[in-house]
């Protein structure tokens, strides 16, 4: 089994700014910058909102800069667990 979770996946989006634009009203009585959200985000492949500890067969590695603190670096290649 691969070691990577949603956090490393191209389909997973947890940038707080993206989330506040995605969920209208999130910033009205809450915030994507709050601790209660943790690192949760949206999987645009499966259309679910989830914590990024999962693994699945659709995992797709990416160079896209999408980590919560925008500090991703390194080498990114397409990963397939099949």
């Amino acid at each position, binding site marked *: *089994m*691969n070691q*990577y*979770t949603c*956090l*490393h996946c191209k389909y997973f989006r947890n940038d*707080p*700014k993206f989330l*506040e634009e*995605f*969920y*209208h*009203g*999130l*910033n*009205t*009585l*809450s*915030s994507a*910058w*709050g*601790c*209660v*959200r*943790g*690192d*949760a985000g*949206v*999987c645009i492949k499966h*259309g*679910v*909102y*989830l*914590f*990024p*500890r*999962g*693994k*699945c067969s659709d995992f797709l*590695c990416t160079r896209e800069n999408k*980590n*919560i*603190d*925008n*500090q*991703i*670096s*390194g*080498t*990114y*290649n*397409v*990963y*397939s667990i099949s």
Partner: protein
Amino acid sequence: MNENQKNVCEVPEVKPSGWKELYLKEDWWAIWLSMGIIFAAIFLYFSGGSLKPLAVTPAKWSSLDQLFHHFALNYKLYFLQFFFWLIVFSLSSKIMGFNLSEFVPSFIFVYVISVIIFSIGAWEKAHHYNLEPPLVALAIGMIIANFIKLPKWMDTGFRVEYFIKTGIVLLGATLPFTLIIYAGPVAMLQATIISVSTCLTVYFAATRLFKLDPRLAACLGAGASVCGVSGTIAVAGAVRAKKEHPCIAITLVIVWAIVMIFFLPFISKILHLHAGVAGAWIGTSEFADAAGFAAAQAYGLMAGMEEIAVRAFTLMKVIGRDIWIGLWAFAFAVISITKWEKGDRLGQKPTLKEVWWRFPKFVLGFFLASLIITVVVHSYSMNEYLHTVKPNLINPIKAMRTWTFIFCFLSIGLTTRFRELASAGNKPFKAFTMGVIVNVILGFIFSAIIFGNYWSTALGVLK
């Protein structure tokens, strides 16, 4: 692309935010900022000075001449205060990843309107016309948001949660720690009974009566009972909700929260409820911290006992409900994995560590602020406290808190754009509304009848 390349994903730097949340999350920034204000206030007090110049607020006025005279005398202090807020909020927002070219003009707008709202609230006849600052801020904000189209980028400066969390930590400094110890357990008991009852009502209405997805039911239940939108977001991630589920719950929470901001204070006024009772009721029956503070402060001002209403609300909402968010998320994650999905997702076993990472950390700042000030004022006699400590140390902190609350209430209004909210649908609306009815009735019974005597007498502790 060859097979080797396909099987390599070198992303060692991609990690959960973990302790980086110390500078990436607004909960922590609310603590750093508030603690800075509190320690500065203590330092100045013991140096023979006071934080009062920075904590300037509009004085009571009965004619516009008086108001203009006040600003003519104090405009330098307002500039000082404005630059203080602008610098601390801008710097922290920049570190969290906000765009300063958006934040700065937006915050200037918030501050200027807040000064106007504060001034309206200081009018001698404001109380007579129900022009309490929280309600005025909310109304002005909603009118601007829904009838005058502001650019979307201005949302960057309308940080409802950041402002309210900062205010809550500052509020801790005005709340004796002994009171938290004394009243906290009662608040927890009442809040837990009502939260669980409300959550179960919404959940079973949604799943049994309206045959909705249990994950949506969980989002709705958490939104109605735990902590509004924050509760929804925490539980949605735990149950792996469909991406539209949080949208539905967010819409319902906002609509009902706005209704309750006006409904609860005015019903409390009609029933002549004691401010402590009304604060406790609002604490159990409002959905979000920011909305609840608006309602509690509004009723406190109506009843002439602002501090009592805010204290009761804080004990009930922050201590009774907010601190359990992580535990609710964990419980729902376990139910989701074992009952709804039956192990069809890999590597997602929830751990108790999640409870900590999802804990609303600003609550720690609230406790710490209360403890620090309680220790500092402990050795003073009541006479010294009332005539020296309170005016020079406590009141300036309270004034700074009031500013953050007004920024927050205005921001709620400015970000409430009804046309942008997702359509909730008939069934979720009905399920959520059933929870609201149970919540409001149970909240009233516990606050006004079962613990009525307690909430109307227990909160007058001064230090």
